[in-house]
């Protein structure tokens, strides 16, 4: 039983790490900020999900497992919302530079 659980963990965590690595590669190599954000959020969310899933059999009790799932859910929520906010900021910035207006910094 524990052997199966360990194998399950090993496979899923390894897969999760692969996704994280891919996301990081995207962050480093992709040319545009928007595509970077895309790569990072998508790949990392899947990666985190796989790692949490892989670790679930190792949880000592139900509460601990529930905490791990909660961590994943909160990360989902935060990364999704933050990615959108950042994307909007990037769009606004590119628009501002296109209009050739000096970017507004600080408060009026």
């Amino acid at each position: 039983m524990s052997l199966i659980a360990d194998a399950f963990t090993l496979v899923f965590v390894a897969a999760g790490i692969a996704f994280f690595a891919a996301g990081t590669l995207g962050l480093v190599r992709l040319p545009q900020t928007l595509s970077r954000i895309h790569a990072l959020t998508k790949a990392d969310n899947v990666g985190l999900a796989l790692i949490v899933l892989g670790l679930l059999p190792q949880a000592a009790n139900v509460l601990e497992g529930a905490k791990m799932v909660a961590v994943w859910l909160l990360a989902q929520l935060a990364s999704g919302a933050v990615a959108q906010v950042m994307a909007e900021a990037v769009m606004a910035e590119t628009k501002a530079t296109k209009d050739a207006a000096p970017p507004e910094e600080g408060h009026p």
Partner: protein
Amino acid sequence: MSLVFDAVLCLVLLAGALGVVTTGAARPAVIAFIGYGLLLGLAWVRLAAVDVALTEIAIGSGISGVVLLRCVRALPAEPLTPAPNRMLKPLAAVVSITIAAALAAVVLALPEPAPSRAADVAAALPATDLGNPVTGVLLVFRALDTLLEKVVLLLSLVGVWALSRDPACRGRPAPLSPEPAPAPSAFLARVLAPIGVLVGLYLLWAGADHPGGAFQSGAVLAAMGLLLVMGDQIRTPAAESRGLRLLLLAGPFGFLAVGFAGWATAGVFLGYPPGAEKAVIIAVEVAITVSIAVTLGLIVLGPPAGEERP
């Protein structure tokens, strides 16, 4: 195996620190610093200091990061930097490496077995009815330090407020952003803030017996408050508000009041009434958590912008 992990962690930590100090531009340096803070938190977990790890991540990396990022935005894009002396960097490198090497030698020479107060704390802790020894040291054995450090926190807010254009420190802090909050921010604030407040309260409640406590909880609560401000869910409070001032004073002066009460009940300043130690300690923790949360939040928001003219 764990030694390999520690070694890798140390190397990444160092790389992060080097990244912070060698990156020329302000924004990447601050972002690298935030990442460095998270890694440092991991190092604290490896050193069996979970309380410190929580504090480091919440305050040392999280709230400090927000303060620094705000600073980057408020500074002019091209800071007026004189061309650094050619010789400066190699010279500085030599000095720093010498210092690091000397310190490393000192660390290696620390005595074995290491002196420790762990046994004293273990002997005295049962009398306080607490399960978390760090909370015991902070709130009972070295309560004077903690009380005065609350005053330091209050004083740093006074220092920030003293930079207001209004000498009487009135009005609300300038908004975090001149534009209305984007929809995802508002959504995040509405959904995440209640959960975050719950987490903060849990950290406070757990702190008596498990890792956690007033600082960690206060930092999480402050972060949730800031999230609500960023999401336009609440307005920044006015600095002259009597209620706000009371919240700021609750922690340090509540603690001080308990200290004086200890004089009456336990016969010594900052003592706790025999038999009711834990209840009183938790009451103190609640008061200082509230003050920490409000103070941290206000420090991030910055000096009040002066009295509003209707």
